[in-house]
């Protein structure tokens, strides 16, 4: 196991969520769920983060933002789409200004569906993401770099 799995730092971006999933993500930090038990910290800085948590569907305004955040995260990193909107666009899918889920823009590693996704589900999704993070790290070791 790499240390990445012991200390995953998260950056959370609210694409165009109804705030339901956001509140559930933040609920994970509260005493009841306390994700810091796993070393998870919510940083506000992509350059420090390992896991990119996106809630809400992607719209025309924030496409660039999501790409920018993703590009500024050092590798290895993983993307977790939280909530059905982040997975597929959800009920907003047909809106004129919505282009769909996060997966259409950047590679998503774990989808956590739900409306809103429950904290347990989110934590489960992130723990799954840790496995992928570990695998990416080991692959990169073999490959020599993070490309």
């Amino acid at each position, binding site marked *: 196991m790499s240390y990445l799995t012991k200390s995953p730092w998260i950056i959370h*971006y609210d694409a165009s969520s109804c705030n339901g999933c956001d509140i559930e993500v933040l609920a994970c930090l509260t005493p009841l769920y306390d994700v810091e038990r796993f070393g998870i910290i919510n940083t506000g*800085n*992509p*350059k420090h983060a390992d896991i990119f948590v996106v809630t809400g569907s992607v719209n025309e*305004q*924030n*496409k*660039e*933002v999501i790409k*920018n*955040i993703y*590009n*500024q995260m*050092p590798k290895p990193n993983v993307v977790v789409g939280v909530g059905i909107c982040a997975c597929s666009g959800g009920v907003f899918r047909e809106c004129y200004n919505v282009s769909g889920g996060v997966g259409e823009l950047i590679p998503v590693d774990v989808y956590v569906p739900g409306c809103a996704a429950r904290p347990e589900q989110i934590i489960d999704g992130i723990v799954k993401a840790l496995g992928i993070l570990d695998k990416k790290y080991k692959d990169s070791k073999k490959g020599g*770099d*993070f490309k």
Partner: protein
Amino acid sequence: MDLLIFLILFPLIAAILMLLLPNGEIRDAIVKIAALIIAVSSVYLFIETFGKGISYVTIGSETVGMAILLCELVVAIFIIAISLKFRKYIVAALAIVQTAILVYAEEFASVETGFLNELFVDEFSVIMALIIGIIGSLICVYSVGYMKGYHEKHADVKDNRKLFFFVMFLFLSAMFGVVFSNHIVWLFFFWEITTLCSFLLIGYAMDEIAWKNAFWALLLNTIGGVGFSGAILFILVYSGNGDFIYLNNLIAAGPVFAMIPAALIAFAGLTKSAQMPFSSWLVGAMVAPTPVSALLHSSTMVKAGVYVIVRFAPIFELSYIGVLISLVGGVTFLLASAIAIGQSNAKKVLAYSTIANLGLVVACAGIGTQEAVWAAILLIIFHAVAKSLLFLAVGSVEHQKKSRDIEDMSGLISTMPKVAVMMLIGIAGMFLAPFGMLISKWATIHAFVNALPPFGMLLIAMIAYGSGITVFFWAKWMGKLIEVKKKSSPLKKEATSPEMFTLYCLTGLTVITCLLFPLISGFMIEPYIVEVYNGTVSQLLSLNNMLIMLMMLVLILLLPLSLGHFSKGRTVVGQYMGARPGVSGVSFAGSMGVTKEVELSNYYMEEFFGEEKLSKTGVILTIILLIVFAAVIILNLPGMVM
């Protein structure tokens, strides 16, 4: 020791030559040759006198003595005439008073002085001579390139370079005179010439502002001159012993006899070294071309002021006069540093930092213990080297960027890498650990703890706050230099070749003096201290600590090698800009499709460190101190005269 006379006369001859030669290649070449000769002969002086302690030169001629007195009068008449012409009646009045005192003293001297040992040289003089000879002449070389560009850019200023180089060399000559004079009247003569030279150089542009500042400098320096002539009057008329007109005898006489003249001369030193409340002349002096500022701030003028105070330091040991001088220095150090925070004009920052550092020297000299004098001399050396480097670097940047504002130096490391690196070294030399000034600051703290209680602790508090402040304004300047928003290609030619040559030399000197400081201390400063304090010198800085300092310095010099390692295998990604969409580089997208590039500016904290408020405080505080100072002198007078 004809070398001393040579060092005084040669720059004088060079100066006269400058008046005769027209602008052009030949003059430029002669400036360089003369500068080289001056530098080489000051180094030769160092070798010649190495390990020999103090030695005297007797000219022993009544004629020379008279000639000096006559020249003195000519200088005074010139000052009075030009002051009257510009209707600066106060300056004229002060100059008249000062001359009158001097003439009265000479005329009614109650004692025979004779002419013996008029000149002398010891380790301290040699250190000063090296500073003047090497740094001063390097600045002259720099001026060759700089002044050409200066006149191309300032078409409105009359090209008076003949006079400029004349005064520059005259200045060097006078400075050598100051540090070699043993006869106090001679010292005063050279002293007055430096005042005159600085007046002419500050007024070089001959416009309204230049004259205003030049006369302001002249006014404050003549106030000091009155104090100096008062000291001569006291010695010649009241002391009852003509031998005291010689520095060595006066200092050897100890505080009982020497306190009053020493205090008066130290007062003159305070004006010349731009201590508060007199500091404003040095700030005003930055209207002059940059090499002039460099000369005034590093190797001449202000150094003459601290030189005399440090000379008399043994007299001040554990005395109230000394404590008062120290407090003036301490207040100046603290407040001038604080004012520097609020300034974005690079030359102004440098000016205030000079005032502050001289304050530290003065504070040490006032304490007057062995350790304090040791620290003071080190401060003089390191300050001279680093400050001249900084001024000249700023001058070269100003030529390229058309601005002397620190904000405009943003990312200089990318556009003018060589100058920027040299500037960084200069700034590091001013405040960072293994470099020069900090060694002295450290010694200063060591010295202050043993000073006259409880004033020592007061001075410690001043230095503690002051050094925090110093870190702030230097570090933010360094930050500005290396802060690169967007990489750009460096300029092909950053400055003219004489300028670059001077900068390289001074950068080298900055590093070398830091590396060699244990030797400088061991072979130059400690013997001097042993001599003036008649005896063994306590271990001023343990060998261990010197070794650690050197190891740190070597470490810093080696660390840039890591840049080679760090340039490989890195992913280069631009700055995080809050992930704002639609723009590239260091800019933000505003509403309505407007893109704004980020402007990064340093903190100046005007509400805390406003120039006006702090200078006013400083002036009031130091004037109070000087009033007490005057009172102490007057209270001591009758006892002395009796």
